[in-house]
């Protein structure tokens, strides 16, 4: 049974919205750097499993909205989202069929590259007073990945998002 595009988009948007709420929730000050990049992780999942619904364009738009939400320069997150989307789509089949642990390692690598790009932009905008804590989100995002992808996979099967058959 092939599900309709509109329904798929609603379901994908719901998960992204939950991710955004998780990104905005206030945390105690010792934990601000521990926050995983929820929205990007959810985006990667959908890029991997529903690539004919979600593409680089949507990733870019979501990134742009994240810029508005988190108060960074407009385009900062957007750039990171579209570069990530490009790499995920390029290695989509290979990534999707990796065992969980290796997949997690790849996510860590991706997030690390993202943070390097982010860091470069911060240096360009003369806004880098950050120390080693800056790299922590790569680790935490990798830590949540197996659970997040498992949960989303379960959700995807239940709601028949992007059923090809």
């Amino acid at each position, binding site marked *: 049974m092939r599900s309709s595009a509109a329904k798929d988009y609603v379901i994908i948007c719901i998960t992204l919205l939950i991710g955004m709420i998780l990104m905005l929730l206030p945390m105690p000050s010792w934990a601000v750097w521990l926050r995983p990049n929820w929205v990007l992780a959810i985006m990667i999942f959908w890029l991997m499993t529903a690539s004919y619904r979600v593409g680089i364009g949507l990733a870019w738009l979501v990134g742009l909205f994240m810029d*508005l939400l988190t108060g960074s320069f407009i385009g900062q997150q957007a750039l990171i989202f579209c570069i990530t989307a490009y790499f995920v789509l390029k290695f989509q089949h290979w990534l999707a069929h990796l065992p969980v642990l290796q997949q997690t390692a790849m996510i860590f690598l991706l997030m690390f590259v993202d943070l390097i790009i982010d860091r470069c932009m911060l240096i360009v905008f003369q806004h880098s007073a950050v120390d080693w804590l800056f790299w922590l989100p790569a680790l935490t995002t990798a830590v949540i990945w197996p659970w997040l992808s498992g949960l989303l996979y379960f959700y995807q099967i239940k709601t028949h998002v992007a059923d090809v058959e």
Partner: protein
Amino acid sequence: MLLLALISMVLMFFDFHSVHFQDWHAKLSVLAFPMQVMVDQPVKLIRWVTTNLKLQRQLLDDNARLRAQELLTESKMQKLLALERENAQLRQLLESTSQAASKVIVAQLLAVALNPETQQVVIDRGSSDDLYLGQPVLDAYGVMGQVISIGPLTSRVLLVTDIKSAVPVQNYRTGARAIAIGSGSSGHLRLINIPDNSDIKEGDLYVASGMGLRFPVGYPVGVVAKSIREAGDRFATISLIPAAHLDKSEQVLLAWPAQASYDQAVQQQLNAAMKEKPS
């Protein structure tokens, strides 16, 4: 991909350099408002519920303590009123205007987290409340920061601990002026260009000096926590703990310092100087 990446970079460039674009950015931030409210409201509700669950005993204790405190404050207030009157008279003698804030409104902080790379917060007042860029934001204990972006319903505040923030300050004890810049992490500020031999002790209070006409004169900024003097270094490393409760405050004050009166005062002085000087 390349096209979108290019667009992002161009957007970032404009956001960094163009004032008009930053204006648009501030206006667009209204799109983020529903999300922010969606997060803010439940968090506030939970906080409200937990505070309401405090034991009655504790409330009674609090009540007794606060009553005692009120008496004390009241008595101090009387002294303060007398001092204020005296001060006003003295200022009149010196022909300068009082620099107290003329108008103040209360704003709520939205309980949303922003990028941890920046020390910023969102408040629920915007251009409809006549905020202006660079407006000082205070809480009951000290200077919190300044308004840097004004949207229709919300605004962003740069806290004093942000790396891009600099506050002209003055030592309350000695009167020596300095500049306090943010360290990028919540919890402390640094004083820059302080000579090694300057008279600064731990526990000294630094207040806004009013240089730069941005922050209200005499409002607390921070207390010296550490002063490190290295033998080979010409400058001392002084770190301050911000006086404002940056992590805990939920309500903040937006002040309109009497800037017009500064200008008038400067004008008067100039005129007086011109008259005295035979041209």
